[in-house]
């Protein structure tokens, strides 16, 4: 029997190794798996590489993980925000490495990892500073049918932490509105994917036509309560 429902976040995050690459979903106020990030802080893994669109806001969630000194490197598209002071301080003092990636390349590199694609040519970033490797050497480029492309490699995760809406014991997931964002691609790109949901349904109750992430991409599901966060968080739909 398959039962991916986990009794607790601590159980779902057992054994996360130091040095892991952790994919963390969310964009703005939508789809941030704050409960799982807190669980990762509790769990204690260090020297992490974190992949997220941003680099933490305020002092909670991802910012708290950074503040706890657990993150060695962050791969993201938009670290600088009005309330990203935790990251800003770490970055300015050289305590964290940053790999800046155009948002679409970030999504596509995750997709490529999930789909077993070895690398891909993308038009995004060609001719810019972001078509350089960390050591300043140019990334491989190619002209294909008259258009210029940069070669980009997949981003594989050891762990993905995502926030979904509804799940079942096979790990099938649906999402809510724009909280879907990186969840489905990150789920495919990690060896182990842990998702929070607000509702667990019996097998067969999720409309198969409406399942967004099939359970094959999901390792563990933890049910959490709906909480109105300070940022606004979830407000009940009509």
């Amino acid at each position, binding site marked *: 029997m398959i039962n991916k429902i986990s009794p607790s976040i601590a159980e779902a995050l057992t054994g996360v190794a130091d040095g892991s690459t952790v994919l963390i979903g969310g*964009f*703005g*106020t*939508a*789809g941030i798996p704050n409960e799982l990030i807190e669980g990762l802080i509790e769990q204690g893994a260090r020297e992490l590489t974190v992949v997220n669109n941003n680099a933490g806001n305020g002092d909670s969630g991802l910012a708290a993980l950074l503040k706890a000194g657990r993150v060695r490197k962050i791969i993201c*598209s*938009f*670290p*600088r*925000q009005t309330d*990203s002071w935790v*990251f*800003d301080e770490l*970055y*300015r003092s050289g305590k964290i490495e*940053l790999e*800046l*990636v*155009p*948002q*679409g*390349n*970030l*999504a*596509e590199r*995750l*997709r490529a990892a999930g789909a077993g694609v070895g690398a891909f040519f*993308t*038009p*995004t*970033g*060609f*001719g*810019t*500073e*972001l078509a350089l490797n960390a050591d300043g050497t140019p990334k491989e480029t190619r002209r294909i049918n008259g258009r*210029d492309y940069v070669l980009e490699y997949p981003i594989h995760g050891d762990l993905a932490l995502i926030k979904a809406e509804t799940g079942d014991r096979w790990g099938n997931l649906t*999402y*809510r*509105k*724009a*909280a*879907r*964002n*990186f*969840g*489905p*691609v990150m789920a495919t790109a990690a060896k182990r994917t842990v998702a929070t949901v607000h509702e667990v349904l019996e097998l067969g109750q999720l409309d198969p036509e409406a399942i*967004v992430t099939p359970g094959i991409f999901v390792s563990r599901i933890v049910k959490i309560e709906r909480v109105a*966060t300070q*940022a*606004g*968080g*979830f*407000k009940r*739909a009509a």
Partner: protein
Amino acid sequence: MSNYTKRSKQELAQRVAQDIFDGAYVNLGIGQPTLVANYLPEGMEVVLHSENGILGMGPAPAAGDEDYDLINAGKQPVTLLPGGAYFHHADSFAMMRGGHLDISVLGAFQVSATGDLANWSTGEAGAIPAVGGAMDLAVGAKETWVMMDLLTKQGQSKVVQSCTYPLTGIGCVKRIYADLATLECTPSGLRLIDKVEGLEHTELEHLIGLPVQA
């Protein structure tokens, strides 16, 4: 001095909206471009895309109706129109890089006469870099339009021979909607689409410092 008046931000947004066609799939960038949504002609169906995973984005909700799972790329609460859809990030950016969006409207620090765009970084030493979806939006849509003031606060032209700020994309801008004129970027340089009343062609060229084909 010549006798001309700059387009206000609202007039500029209105000018851009005039050129958007019925049925277009459009991404309006963060900041000034979002104003364009307020001037789309009634009765015309334009599908707005938000890169965090929305097609058919509607206006801001009434106070008290905000849903923080339904936000735009600028992280502001929005609504969904009937017929709208949600999708994940890889699909959303496939809509750009795959050339499915008709028009992307962006702000800019500089645009070159041949359509190179600089809008993500001023290259200032010590600044924390951030790019978001700018590079994808610049190269992905069928047409990329820029909306900006023609001159900096110091009076320098933001339309240049060659960008000095870090590039967002090469040869990607098709049109510049500025407060003084609307210009087309072509491989052979700038071409005039329109200009504000009272601004002489020679004066426009003088302000930009580059030839503008009539």
